[in-house]
């Protein structure tokens, strides 16, 4: 059973083709990594899958729902952490979380339970008197992740969740991502830290709007006889561009 099925998805902005006939599928409970340089088209794919952008052509299903004709159902089943921080900086962390809880229609008892869980797991305690803008970057990222998983989505989209986070906090992030996958959440995550690709069960390398390699991290490395993911990535991109 696939959580995400993408078939020849294309997005064109005027003359520029941001995503070019991308096809892939993500199995349920999988951690699927999207690798690529900035501007490769990863974010555009995610934004289409979340219903924020309409594809120029091609189709995609998220949790069994068509992203163009059943957007509302898609939105109910996903959590999204955008690359650009998008919480309300003038509100406190708890006020932001409560907004999410309301938008995703959580009942009061579930809301309390989830807030408890998230604040402990993400160490978000004792900061509710402050506004989000007065908090350090790492904390903001944790809060954004907490909001994205608050309603226990079936599918979680994380767009560069670890950018700007220090290495120790990055480890905590991946621990949580693993935990969520263990609970049964399917995760699609983009990153440009190649070593993070090792955490994924499947990876897909994008360059200039196209998917140029796909498989488990091991398979991708073997493809070009590389030892590290970093090495494999550079070789694959070089080969694709020549």
């Amino acid at each position, binding site marked *: 059973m696939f959580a995400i099925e993408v078939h020849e998805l294309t997005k064109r902005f005027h003359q520029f083709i941001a995503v070019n006939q991308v096809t892939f599928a993500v199995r349920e409970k999988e951690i699927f990594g999207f690798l690529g340089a900035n501007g490769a088209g990863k974010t555009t794919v995610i934004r289409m899958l979340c219903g924020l952008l309409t594809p120029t052509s091609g189709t995609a299903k998220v949790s069994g729902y068509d992203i163009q004709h059943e957007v509302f159902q898609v939105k109910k089943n996903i959590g999204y952490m955008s690359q650009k*921080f998008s919480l309300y900086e003038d509100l406190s962390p708890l006020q932001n979380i409560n*907004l999410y809880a309301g*938008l995703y229609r959580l009942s009061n008892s579930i809301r309390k339970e989830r807030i408890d869980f998230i604040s402990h797991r993400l160490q978000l305690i004792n900061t509710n008197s402050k506004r989000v803008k007065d908090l350090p970057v790492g904390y903001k990222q944790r809060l954004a992740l907490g909001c994205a998983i608050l309603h226990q989505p079936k599918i979680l989209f994380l767009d560069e969740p670890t950018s700007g986070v220090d290495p120790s906090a990055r480890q905590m992030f991946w621990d949580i991502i693993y935990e969520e996958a263990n609970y049964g959440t399917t995760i699609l995550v983009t990153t440009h830290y190649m070593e993070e690709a090792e955490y994924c069960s499947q990876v897909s390398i994008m360059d200039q709007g196209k998917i140029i390699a796909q498989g488990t991290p091991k398979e991708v490395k073997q493809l070009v006889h590389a030892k590290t993911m970093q090495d494999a990535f550079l070789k694959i991109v070089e080969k694709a561009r020549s």
Partner: protein
Amino acid sequence: MRPLLALWKKELLQMIRDPAMLRVLIAAPIIQLLILSYAINTELKQMRVAIVNYDQSNESRRFIEKLFATDYFVPVSIYISSYSSAIQAFMQSEAEMVIILPENFSQPQNENQNIQIIVDGQHSNVASLGLGYLQRMVAQYNLQRIEQMKLDGKLPFSIYQTIEPVVRVWYNPNLDPKWFFVPGICVLLITIIATLLSGIAIVKEREIGTIELLLVAPIRRWQLIIGKIVPFYFLSLLLLGLAFIVGLLWFRVPFIGSWFDIWLGVTLYLFFLLSLGLFISTLSKTQAQAMFLVWFILIFSILTSGFFFPVENMPKWLQTMTIVNPMKYMMIIVRCVMLKGASWIELWDNYIMLAGLGLITAIAAIFRYQQKLN
């Protein structure tokens, strides 16, 4: 309903969390009302007059006394002896009017011995008002003189046999311009506040990126719009209430009609304004752009709303254009309900126009909004 409540709570928290903004929003209507009401003053008071009296008879002194007995004119200096020094005062803007009484003021021999008046026409409104008062005074003075001549047996009939109108002013017996401007300023205030708030609402979220959070959530477009607009509606209503309190208690403007009629009009008007704001929001990429558009539209609608000048005095083509200016209808409603005690039954066409223009704008905004997001 839960998502809507969450959105309203968020808007409320954002308003409260920004005390500086809150203070501005509450203080602005009061300060603007106080200052604007005093600044916009069309009545004439204490025009500075330089008088050169070549006559020096009792007759001419009585005329001058009569002139300065009113509040309309004040002397620049009592002792101006020559024409040239009066002109000098006039040129240095010390005097706004020069009156020259000829030598034979009391016993004119021919037409050339008339009283001469020079008036500063830069402020055409002040000048024509001043001249009007002066002419009325001269006419009165003439009548008294003729009556005197009659008493002296020089004239055969009484001037009191002529017609004298008895004037009664309705709706504003003292012709206090504040009664005219205070309701207008109230309309002006909510126009500015509501259009600005809703004009930057969506753009602001887009600019700081928080719109993503809302767009990716499972809420309908209309919920997003209602979530924005309802808090602004209540805030505008609250601020209008404050302005009314100042208008009624401080300026003592009467309120003869019913609050329901005002509320009904304001609600229709706010429906238009908030839709207009959303429409502007879809046309702009940045908050600055939205602000610019708001001001551009506002200035045009203020000038053609009848706030300063009656619409009936405008050229025909401009009058035709004001048909699509909702502010015009709101001005009429607020003024007529407050001062005349009119009700929506007499003013129904204004209410219909407000509702119609609001509906058209709302449809346009929703249409643009959908287009924009795709």
